């Protein structure tokens, strides 16, 4: 079972773009970004296994690019990429300032859905839609 984490982010006051980790300026507007945060659950954008990683990293090195809710993307390490596909739902968590991804089981996704629906009443409709969509996509992919 995974536990949901909160990831620090920053948001552009003009274009509302969200980036992780927090950056001083919006990459497109040069404006000072505002602090924000986002749940550590997202979708795999792409991934690779590097067989000759640079010094200081063990081979094989599993790297994935994950898109969190709200559109912020971040690089993560993982124990393996078996069972991971583009579009898979994963949880991300930082250990020593490095993010790691792990697959979400069906039970994890259901639990996150109920907990979030309870914790954020005002956003229930939007979140319900997004999570149900996520669960449905996850299930339809097997």
């Amino acid at each position, binding site marked *: 079972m995974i536990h949901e984490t909160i990831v620090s982010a920053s948001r552009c006051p003009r274009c509302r773009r969200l980036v992780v980790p927090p950056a001083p300026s919006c990459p497109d507007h040069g404006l000072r970004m505002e602090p924000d945060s986002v749940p550590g659950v997202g979708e795999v954008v792409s991934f*690779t*296994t590097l*067989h*000759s990683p640079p010094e200081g990293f063990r081979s094989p090195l599993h790297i994935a690019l994950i898109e969190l809710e709200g559109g*912020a993307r971040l*690089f993560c*390490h993982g124990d393996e990429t078996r069972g991971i596909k583009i579009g898979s739902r994963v949880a991300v968590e930082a250990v020593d300032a490095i993010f790691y991804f792990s697959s979400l089981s069906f039970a994890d996704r259901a639990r996150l859905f109920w907990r979030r629906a309870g914790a954020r009443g005002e956003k229930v409709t939007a979140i319900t839609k997004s999570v149900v969509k996520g669960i449905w996509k996850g299930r339809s992919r097997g």
Partner: protein
Amino acid sequence: MTRFGRREESLPDLMAEAARAALADADVERPDAIVVAAMNPEEFTGEGNYGSLINTHLGFSRVPALRVETATSSGLAAFYCGYLAIAAGFHRTVLVLGGEKMSHLPTPRVSEIIGRSIDPHERRYGTTMPALAGLITRAVMHRTGLTLREISQVAVKNHANATRNPYAHFQEAVTLEAVMDSRMVADPLRLYHCCPISDGAAAVVLHAEAGPVRVAGIGQGTEAIAVRYRSDLTSFRATQSAAQAAYRMAGFGPERVEVAEIHDAFSPFELISLEDTGLIPAGKAGRATLDGETALDGRLPVSPSGGLKARGHPLAATGIAQIVELTWQLSGRAEGRQVKARVGLAQSIGGIATNNWVALLEARP
């Protein structure tokens, strides 16, 4: 230009070899200015202040010289600066040269130095150029249905072209099976999908007076250095913007381009780039390559020089080597690999497609 590959000479010697050949060819004894491209000689060879180092080494210490850098596309960036100097009326002849010397270092060290062009936060995850290219390749294959066979054919085609280019790093053909069975580097990218580590230099002389080939257009395009800031991995905004700017300046579009030199640092990048420049419709580059459309005798020959994969990729030399190849092609001097063309396009990728260039050259009637 010099022969690309493993070279024993120093980078200043390689640059001098390329510069002398270009000056002799242009019948210019002494240029009005020099623009030097070098991506990272400080760390590859321990030398800096490259404008001054090179103008002195060439015996032109009184000729104004500057250095230009946009990572792996530095060569076309230098070409742009040389062009600007002439277009603005500051100079009549500008020597543009670029090169890199890296093969004396162990491969992990070279990868690490090249990798410094990646966003510092993303480098903390061990991302190298092949790792990011692997990630991009998987995303493209997933989105468009591009196959490994189509990607691998780029390497086969470029190796075949290089067997006809005496300046190329590799002079051997490779089979599709050899490419597809080569060692895995960054899943799904294999060794033969990646360009080699090459030494070499290339030079060209730009002249205010009309010559056999003219610069019809040149454009730059940029993208955030952080890959995580991009909303799409399957095309390169920096190439698209550069191509738009170049076509706008030229007053014509991709339909007039008859030969191209494309930045295939990784084989799938050639396919992405052919679509980003509008030379092939979106989603069709893989099929076109497999069908031979981009081969030397195809409808649109792409990288007759052998490209980065087989001509080699001495970083800052590459963009200028593309210009040299197109100049030879457009003036009927590409012996052994001559194609029929009046307009050529060069495209160069800086970093992981953060600072890209497109140049259009046209033969004068």
